[in-house]
């Protein structure tokens, strides 16, 4: 009997074929679950071709955009991308001063009324002219409760926007609002007619702005592709296109840079800068993040003023900067960095003095736990080590981010190490949030309050005279540092990995990518 030919290899092939059948299943899922047509539409636009590739600048960030609608997110990586397509009335320069963007100038008619003169030669990417109506529409859209924009709280000081003529708007605020300009800088203008015509959903899929780049396509979790806008009011950008790629894992992001798949990689940890060699180099810019150790003033040992002062003396910030940041950070002697409005020069600072600290900690029986999130663990461990060297029993307690937030907001942390971003560049951000008694209702933090300080903070919030504000903040800073609910630590640089191909790029302290003049060689 001739044995029947059993096609084993063919059997394997069939297994694979069945597996492919499963694939078809998955595909089916994708189509019923998702709107395949939409993704198709978005992708169709991308007829990039190989020749355009030479001029495409690729930036790797840690996260994907959440939406291309500039009003419907509260997320910095998203804003870095949408701000290439959209622009605001004002922008912030590298010293965090407001500079013209879509508004050429502004002045105040009185404490509550601001007059903005708009740029005249600006068109949206669909050809519509940019006018005062777009400004009013955009601000109203953000503030409209129906719209549920997560950005509303940034502009809540605005009472009304009035169109005077095509290129003039009057913005009135409820109270004198020194932070109006920094609020406007992070909220972009959208085209009124287009948005109303196509609706929110389609606007997010095919966004149209005034920025140097036009939207081409967004493949979620893969890339956002933008093209140079030839009619940009400041002249078209030097590169043909701009691509943002989300690569969450930092070593993968650096690998993409080193293998030439990306030209700029954002958010490089300072301790990895040494890895960027050869055709890539680390480029730093003074950051806007303040690291601090917060001490709960309502419980032992830090209910004792002396213990808080001792903590300030026990921490050697210069050593932290050198050891953990390889010098890419600035030690802080107050809860502000030099570019901020409200930074006080020549403040009387705590000198690093272990002996003085030890003398105080000798009388302290309690041990402390420093609450911290995983990302800040190393810094917290170093600080705990310094406190221990001064005789305070300190350990580090790593919490999941939300558990951490709950702990510090409920006031159950004895001590915690954290950071606060101050992209607005104004001391109000720190003072009103951390040291102003009304804020303690929602977030206890250190539990520290002081009536005199409250008055200073309110006064600084309600005047527009910058000189007077500096003065008020100088007094406020003195009180905060005297009573020492915080040990201000340091202000790290933001580090980018940059390929040698990139010419003429400078990072911005608020993380924006100003790439209009960048060339690739």
């Amino acid at each position, binding site marked *: 009997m001739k*044995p029947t030919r*059993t096609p*084993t*290899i063919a*059997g394997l092939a069939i*297994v*694979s074929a069945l*597996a492919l059948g*499963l*694939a078809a299943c*998955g*595909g089916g*899922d*994708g189509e*019923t*679950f*998702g*709107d*395949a047509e939409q993704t*198709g539409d978005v*992708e*169709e636009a*991308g*007829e*990039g*071709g*190989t020749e355009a*590739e030479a001029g*495409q600048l690729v930036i790797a960030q840690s*996260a994907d955009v959440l939406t291309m609608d500039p009003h419907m*997110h*509260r*997320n910095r990586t998203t804003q870095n991308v949408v701000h290439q397509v959209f622009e605001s009335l004002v922008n912030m320069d590298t010293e965090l001063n407001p500079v013209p963007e879509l508004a050429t100038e502004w002045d105040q008619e009185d404490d509550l009324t601001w007059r903005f003169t708009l740029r005249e030669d600006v068109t949206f990417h669909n050809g519509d002219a940019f006018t005062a109506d777009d400004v009013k529409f955009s601000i109203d859209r953000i503030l409209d409760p129906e719209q*549920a924009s997560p950005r509303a*709280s940034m502009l*809540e000081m605005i009472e009304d926007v009035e169109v005077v003529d095509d290129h003039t708007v009057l913005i009135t605020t409820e109270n004198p609002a020194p932070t109006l300009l920094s609020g406007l800088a992070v909220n972009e203008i959208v085209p009124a007619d287009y948005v109303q015509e196509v609706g929110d*959903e389609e606007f*997010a899929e095919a966004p149209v702005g005034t920025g140097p780049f036009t939207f081409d396509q967004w*493949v*979620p*979790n893969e*890339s956002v592709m933008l093209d140079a806008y030839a009619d940009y009011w400041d002249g078209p950008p030097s590169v043909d296109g701009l691509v943002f*790629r989300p*690569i969450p*894992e930092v*070593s*993968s992001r650096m*690998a*993409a840079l*080193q*293998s030439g*798949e990306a030209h700029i990689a954002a958010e490089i940890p300072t301790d990895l800068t040494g890895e960027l060699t050869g055709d890539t180099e680390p480029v730093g810019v003074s950051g806007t993040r303040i690291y601090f150790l917060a001490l709960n003033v309502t419980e032992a040992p830090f209910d004792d003023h002396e213990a808080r002062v001792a903590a300030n003396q026990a921490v050697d910030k210069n050593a932290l900067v050198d050891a953990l940041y390889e010098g890419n950070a600035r030690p802080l002697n107050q809860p502000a960095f030099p570019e901020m409005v409200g930074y006080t020069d020549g403040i009387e600072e705590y000198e690093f003095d272990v002996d003085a600290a030890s003398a105080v900690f000798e009388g302290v029986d309690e041990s402390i736990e420093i609450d911290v999130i995983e990302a800040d663990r190393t810094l917290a461990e170093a600080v705990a080590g310094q406190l221990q060297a001064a005789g305070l029993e300190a350990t580090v307690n790593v919490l999941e*981010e*939300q*558990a951490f*937030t*709950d702990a510090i907001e409920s006031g159950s942390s004895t001590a915690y190490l954290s950071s*606060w971003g101050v992209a607005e560049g104004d001391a109000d*951000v720190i003072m009103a949030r951390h040291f102003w008694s009304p804020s303690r209702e*929602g977030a206890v933090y250190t539990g520290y309050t002081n009536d005199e300080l409250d008055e200073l903070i309110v006064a600084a919030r309600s005047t527009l005279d910058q000189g007077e504000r500096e003065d008020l903040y100088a007094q406020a800073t003195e009180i905060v540092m005297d009573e020492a609910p915080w040990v201000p630590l340091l202000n790290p640089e933001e580090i980018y990995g940059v390929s040698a191909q990139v010419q003429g790029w400078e990072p911005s302290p608020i993380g924006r990518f100003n790439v209009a003049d960048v060339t690739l060689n």
Partner: protein
Amino acid sequence: MLPVIVRRLGQTVLVLIGVSIIVFSLIHITPGDAVDVMFAGENVSVEQREAYRQQLGLDQPIVQQYFSYVAGALQGDLGTSIRRGTPVTEIIGSTIPATVELTLAALVVAIIIGVPVAIISALRQGSIWDRGGSVVALFGISMPSFWLGIMLILLLSITVSWFPASGRLGLEAGGLRQITGFLLIDAPLQGNWTALWSGLKHIALPALTLGAAITATLSRVLRSGLLEVKRQDYIDALRARGLHRPRVIRHMIRNALPAAVIVMGVRIGSLLGGAIVVEVVFGWPGLGRLVVDAIQNRDFPIVQGAVLVMALLFVAVNFLTDIIQAWLDPRIKLSGGASR
């Protein structure tokens, strides 16, 4: 066959209900919600947060939230992403092909490498080849995928730059229209060979990383199956009849395969889970990375939807394994019982 399928579908529904309840509860036990995360570290008052919660419907009682979720899900509406504002079905749908493609590629890697290794090891039991196979398999099983992935990137992307370090498609491929969502199918369909080549290069390292453990499992299981078969009388009989060696091997494989298929079927489920790590390391735009992002952002609708879809995929794979197994081994009858 039909009653079996119907009964299986019934079980699937039960699984999905169970999964949805568990996920819903777990999510609401974890501290914080999307609004907390969105405004973390920003000057947003408690009242503003509450107002925003109301706008999103997050202030409703949990049970009510669950039932309105189920009511929507039954109509194919898995809700709207809190952070992105787009329908969850749309977001998940766009990521499924990437994950399935990666999983299948890992399976292909496993078959291409695992089967020959198993055959050589079994035929030359105790030889240097067999021992080498054991060492490689041990290596494949013990390597954590995040480490292996990074090592492959270091070696093959940075040092010799043969393969790209991340992503699914290079820029040189131009605009590739999505038809099925499966890049390796869409590219040849459109005759875009640059895109196909770029896609293959991009999938190689993630597939190798994801496939390492399952390759090892396959080669070990198939090897022991082959060894068992090798000792059976009928193999001797076939040899005695003077059959050519390749043909004898085919008989052996055919008889050793069912056991391997069961093990593989179970492992495909773990591949879907392993894809989460690999997708993060390689910046692969799939379901796993979506879930990780969504959990970090407390974007509950996406987490719920994605876990449901994963459960569904898992059940589907199990069922498929049963069918393949029954087809490979006529002695097995499909019963309505559990998937064994």
